[in-house]
């Protein structure tokens, strides 16, 4: 698997996203799906190199250089799989045959044993638009504008009433 060189050149999605870079991770908000994601450093670096020109092998080499340690293609594939699933790539990249049909948990363990870098992780965080809990309104109150109900933390629009 290490020697396999992919011909695919993944491309990161840029439209409809808000990206915030923190010192050790990248936060992404998907304006179309109203979903927020947190990419750890490895996933963020893979995503950053998805320019539609570099293939998986080239991305792996760039990561090796940046982390100053050998990074296998499977680490890149693992990141691409998660990025694709969360709609952060222009197109999903198919996993190589050797990695297909293996549970994500097994894959993480297998790849984790073979690499010194942190495994790529993309976690979902609560959508910012649903987080107006500070100004939520009580059960039974009518929604004057689009507001968030304290009981459900869901959006309520006029003329509805919070359950």
């Amino acid at each position, binding site marked *: 698997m290490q020697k396999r060189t992919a011909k695919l050149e993944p491309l990161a999605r840029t439209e409809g996203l808000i990206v915030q870079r923190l010192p050790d991770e990248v936060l992404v908000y998907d304006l179309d799906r109203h979903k*927020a994601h947190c990419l750890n450093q490895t996933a963020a670096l893979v995503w950053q190199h998805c320019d539609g020109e570099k293939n998986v092998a080239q991305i792996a080499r760039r990561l090796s250089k940046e982390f100053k340690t050998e990074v296998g293609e499977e680490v890149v594939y693992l990141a691409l799989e998660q990025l694709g699933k969360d709609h952060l790539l222009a197109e999903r990249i198919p996993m190589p045959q050797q990695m297909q049909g293996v549970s994500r948990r097994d894959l993480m363990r297998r790849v984790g044993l073979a690499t010194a870098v942190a495994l790529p992780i993309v976690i979902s965080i609560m959508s910012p638009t649903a987080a107006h809990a500070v*100004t939520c*309104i*009580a*059960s*039974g*109150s009518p929604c004057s*504008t689009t507001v968030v109900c304290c009981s459900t933390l869901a959006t309520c629009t006029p*003329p509805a009433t919070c359950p």
Partner: protein
Amino acid sequence: MMKTRKGKPGSSLISSLLTGAWRETPPPSEINAAELEQVAPLLIASGGGALAFWKLRGSPLASTQTAADLKQVYRLYTLQAAIHEREIERVIQLLNSEDIEPILVKGWSMARHYPEPALRPYGDIDLFVRPEQFERAGKIFESEEGRKFFVDLHKGAEHLDEQSFESLFVRSETVKLGEVSVRVLSPEDHLRILCVHFLHHGAWRPAGLCDIALLAEAACSNFDWDACLTQNRKRAGWIICAVGLAHQLLGADITGTPIAEAARKLPRWLVPAVMKEWENPVSVDHVVPPPLANRLSHPFETIKAIRRRWPPNPIQATIVMNGSFNEWPRIIFQAGNYLTRTAKFLASLPKEAFASPDSKHRDRH
């Protein structure tokens, strides 16, 4: 009263954890892991989660699961801040296209003073507009695009300040946000408005007191305290008390300010009243309660709702009744506030009783 295993009340822990949390380099935290676990839900739900994370960075508690939860809040606020900034840009563009120049208050105009704008929670976009432009501005937010934004338009500074829009405008300043220039209040006017707003809501939000602490600490040599306190002596007393609370409960450094001495002499009932609110800053009592009229058909519910409204928050009652923050018992203002609300409710009864559910909804808003 919410207590930790060691017996410290939740309000003391909030006070301890948020002390200096708004600073670039906050002072070390003095609470332990069990206390953090106890107080974190209160802080998260009342808008202080990101500030708590900021305070704990680099401390031994930063590796706890509770700190990880607080970091999640910080991440969330980071994205919220970015979204909020985009929305403000668009809202200002919409208003400017109709020759309306609003003043942005609270929200981002306050958050920009923090080391990171993500340390403060975001709600709606509060805007002051000239009274004669209020109706026109309102129409913008009835349009298809305008309806997407959570905008709270104020006719001048009504409900928040006594100063006219023009006098606030003259002292205001503009700051760049992306492609637009946003007009924000002068630090003097902003501090005054934040103090009154915090007290008017019964001082229940610890994060609101952090705003006051930050602005009071930032008040440098050219800060015009006379402009902040205005000629209204009663209001000046409110502001001094709010700054005094920021000093006493959150360690705001007010040394050298002309109000330092007065701010250290708070009425004896005030700190306990705030601490009582902070015991449960996530209580349903702090959100807009359902109107009593909704419960008229359920007598037991009505009685329960009436009971829930007594006693009113003494801080809020004093502000609503335009009272002074002195040593006098608060019962006078609480009773006055309760009777005023009851009278308002009774006066609305005939209208409520005969109104259809739809018109009830319309009238209320």
